[in-house]
Every structure is written in structure tokens, then in C-alpha cells.
């Protein structure tokens, strides 16, 4: 297997982009990444998108986007694993370059979510759950995570305030991210007084509905070195599945797929988790970030709430989590998120993260998750 580097990144401002269609959002973002990479040719494209079919009635997405980029006949594939579609796209691109199958691969993630009503969007997101045994009963994603929160709070004493602190921290980070959907700070009281979505989760515990895209360009690390580009290497990649339905899990308070995917990625990178300088994780809901920090091994089981309360995961903490603002403040255009995590980490490892910069960052980890934990994809990155 060859070493793989990321030589170009691209992302535009995320939000409710009424004037931009899915293809526009993707193409302008992809062009930024291609220009940043300074490459002419692309050997292959991988696109992560959860549900262009339900959101804008468009399947056959990879072909459409290859066309819109003016790059036909480039081979293009769309991959899907619900909210980890972006991370999965990165992994597929990584495998293509590492295996020698392709040299230069464009990996993009995109989702256009605001062309449907809120109820329709909730339904579309709900297709990541078990349709016949969860969706049929009226479950939603906030509902599934709320049930994890209730179980976590019951077993470990995690508090409502600790959940709110995750959102507050991420907004604090996001307020320094000009591309974030919500670049402003919030307070714990603000979270606790916001409207209930699925008890105990309130609207400010939940990542938003967002339009947006992110893209990176991959190439063999040797090529990157020859091109005299700052080399950020994908040092490890791991992926794992778990039962699709929450009720089928062995432990309702534990994200086993994240745990396994992280172990695999770290093993490939030859690192332990406490050697990582920053983390971009899947805070689709505040409780998710708490459970992810435990599954990654940053803290012991059940201690995720205390960790955020003690500042362990703050920008200046021992394990900075979501310096970009996370899904909460940056936004969550579903298929784009996993790629945007990579974009942030690359910027951080290049020293180009502005006033979000984690000083001396050399190793980064991105954790992207689908559904209620049915899929997890983890990547470890290194600045050479």
C-alpha cells in the first residue's frame, strides 16, 4: 500500500443556500479543492451524499457531478452510509490511491437539504434508521439519540448541563470559523431554555439542517513531496458497522462501531489515541459527542459528561474536540460532513486554521458516524 496525502482542500460557507442548487454547491467547492491542489488531471471521483434522491429527486449523482465539473469521462462513484457518507467517500478515495489503482482522486461530500419541508427532511434523515422497526413506530433521529441520552444519564449520571456544555463549546469554536452556518456563541442557559425536540434534547442540542459541500484532493504522498506541497498524510483508516436498530445494540450507552473503527485507524497509523492533537467528531447531537469521546478512549466509560465539564475537550484542553465548531455550529449537510472534518484537520495540520489553530498540531483524528451508530468511519492524519 502506498502512502496517501491530501494536497488540496475546498469548502464554502454553509447554511441555507437558497440560490444554490446541489450541483452548484458541489462544483464550486470541488473547484476550490482542485485549485488548492494545483492539479490538472483527476483520475477518479468519489462523492458522498446521503440522499439526493429524497431531498432533490436526483440519483445517478456521481455522473451528474463529473459532468458538471467538466471532467467526463472520469470514473465517478457515489457512496452512502447515511451521515458517514463523507467519511466513507474519503476512505474509498484513500483505498484507490493506496492500492495504486488511481493517482489523483477528488473526494467530495455534498447535501442539499432545504428544498423540502422540515417534516420531509426529518423523514429523509429517518431513513438512516430501521424503517420497519424504528421508523414505522414514529422514531426520528433526535428521538433515537434522546433515548441514548436518557439511558446514559440514568446509568452514569450525565446531566442536562453537561450536554449543553458540548453545544456551548462547539459554538465557541464555530464563532471563529467564517465558513460555519452559525458562527456565534451560545450559553448553557440558552440551550436549556430552547424548545424541546425529543426529551431531553432541545433544538440547541441538535445539529441543524444545512446545505453545503466539502472536497479534498488525494494523491500518493511521494507525488505530493515532489510537488513541494505541505504533506498531510492519511495515516490510518478504519470503518465498522453495528446493528442498524438501536434496540438491537448490546449496550444502549456505547458506540461500538466508533470504538472498533478508531482502533483500526490508530493501529494502521501506529498511534495511540492520546498522541492525537485534535479531533473532529460527529456531534449530530450533544449526547453523541459525549459518547464518542468515550468510544475513542479519551475518557473512561460514562465519563464523557464530566470530561466536557472539566474542559478536557475545549480548544485549550487536553483533547481538543471539534475546533471547527463541529456539526452543531458548522452545520451538517449530511454527506459533506465527513469530508469537511478532513478539511479542518488538514488546515490545522498545515498551520492554516487562523484563530482556531491548535498550536503545534501534528496528528489529527476524524470520526464520522451514520445513523444511531450503525456505521463509523475514522481517519488519522499526520503532518509531515
Amino acid at each position, binding site marked *: 500500500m502506498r502512502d496517501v496525502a491530501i494536497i488540496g482542500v475546498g469548502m464554502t460557507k454553509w447554511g441555507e443556500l437558497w440560490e444554490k442548487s446541489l450541483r452548484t454547491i458541489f462544483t464550486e467547492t470541488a473547484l476550490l479543492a482542485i485549485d488548492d491542489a494545483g492539479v490538472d488531471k483527476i483520475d477518479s471521483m468519489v462523492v458522498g451524499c446521503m440522499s439526493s434522491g429524497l431531498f432533490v429527486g436526483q440519483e445517478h449523482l456521481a455522473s451528474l457531478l463529473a459532468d458538471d465539473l467538466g471532467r467526463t469521462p472520469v470514473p465517478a462513484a457515489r457512496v452512502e452510509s447515511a451521515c458517514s457518507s463523507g467519511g466513507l467517500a474519503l476512505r474509498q478515495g484513500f483505498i484507490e490511491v493506496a492500492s495504486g489503482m488511481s493517482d489523483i482522486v477528488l473526494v467530495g461530500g455534498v447535501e442539499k437539504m432545504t428544498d423540502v419541508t422540515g417534516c420531509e427532511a426529518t*423523514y429523509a434523515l429517518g431513513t438512516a434508521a430501521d424503517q420497519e422497526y424504528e421508523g414505522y*413506530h414514529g422514531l426520528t433521529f433526535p428521538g433515537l439519540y434522546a433515548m441514548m441520552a436518557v439511558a446514559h444519564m440514568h446509568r452514569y449520571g450525565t446531566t442536562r448541563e453537561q450536554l449543553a456544555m458540548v453545544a456551548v463549546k462547539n459554538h465557541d469554536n464555530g464563532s471563529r470559523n467564517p465558513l460555519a452556518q452559525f458562527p456565534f456563541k451560545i450559553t448553557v442557559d440558552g440551550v436549556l431554555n430552547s424548545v424541546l425536540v*425529543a426529551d431531553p434534547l432541545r433544538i440547541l442540542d441538535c445539529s441543524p439542517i444545512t446545505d453545503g459541500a466539502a472536497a479534498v484532493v488525494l494523491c500518493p504522498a511521494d507525488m505530493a513531496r515532489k510537488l513541494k506541497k505541505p504533506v498531510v498524510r492519511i495515516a490510518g483508516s478504519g470503518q465498522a458497522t453495528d446493528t442498524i436498530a438501536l434496540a438491537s445494540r448490546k449496550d444502549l450507552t456505547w458506540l461500538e462501531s466508533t470504538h472498533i473503527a478508531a482502533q483500526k485507524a490508530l493501529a494502521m497509523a501506529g498511534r495511540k489515541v492520546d498522541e492525537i492533537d485534535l479531533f473532529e467528531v460527529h456531534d449530530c447531537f450533544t449526547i453523541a459527542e459525549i459518547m464518542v469521546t468515550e468510544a475513542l478512549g479519551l475518557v473512561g466509560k460514562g465519563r464523557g459528561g464530566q470530561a466536557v465539564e472539566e474542559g478536557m475537550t475545549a480548544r485549550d484542553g487536553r483533547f481538543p474536540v471539534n475546533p471547527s465548531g463541529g456539526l452543531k455550529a458548522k452545520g451538517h449537510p449530511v454527506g459533506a460532513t465527513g469530508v469537511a472534518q478532513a478539511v479542518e484537520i488538514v488546515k490545522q495540520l498545515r498551520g492554516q486554521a487562523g484563530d482556531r489553530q491548535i498550536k503545534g498540531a501534528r496528528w489529527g483524528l476524524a470520526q464520522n458516524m451514520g445513523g444511531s451508530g450503525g456505521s463509523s468511519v475514522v481517519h488519522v492524519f499526520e503532518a509531515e
Partner: protein
Amino acid sequence: MPTPSRYWREIPQRYRMEAGKCKACGFIAFPPRAVCPACGAREFVPAKLADGGKLLTYTIIRVPPQPFEDQAPYAVGIAELDDGVKLTAQVVDCDFADLKVGLRVRLEFRKLSEEGLAGVIYYGYKFVPE
């Protein structure tokens, strides 16, 4: 919500809680499936789920998906039935203030939703406090 054929196919599970018990290790699969997730074996015998259990967790859905628009707020939960099977369903006939981890519930036949005023009516199981 499902098409008539998708709904009809799940009737043995939705109406009668029909499951499959692994011949090799006794794992109960609901719905029935081809491969035992516990031991990998491929032979099952028919089994019916226990009709009661206790809540492991719950929540109150206040922002519903489309087909459930008129029903919000409604409670949902995951219960561990007396035979060890874990099941997701709405919790009804229960004041929200009475919801708690460990609440004993039984299964009752109820209407889940319907396809507008002219479409199919979807039936199935819900949890009711014992």
C-alpha cells in the same frame, strides 16, 4: 410510510409478534432472519415474543416525521421483554410524567398511522403501562 406490500409482508410480526429462535444458541430474532447474529447458525424455529417487559429508555418526540404530524407529542421507548428481546415502540396511555427507566409495560394492538384519509391504515404494537 410503507406501500401496501411492504406493510402486508410484516403482518406476522406486527400483529402476532412472530419471531425466530436460533436452534443452536437460543437467540431470539425479531423480526426473523436468515443468519443468527449471535452464533452465525442458519436454522431457526418459530417463536412468539413475551407480551410484556420493562423500559430501558424512552423519549417524547415533539418534532414528528411527516406521517406522524398530528400525533406529536408522543412517547417512544425501548423495552426489554421478559424473554430478553429488546423492542422499540411508542408508549401510550401513560402520562409523560410517569415515564421512567424500569417502567413495566405490556404490548397492545393499536393503529400506528394512516396514509391520509383515503389510504391504507397501518396497525401494529405499542407499549402500555402494565
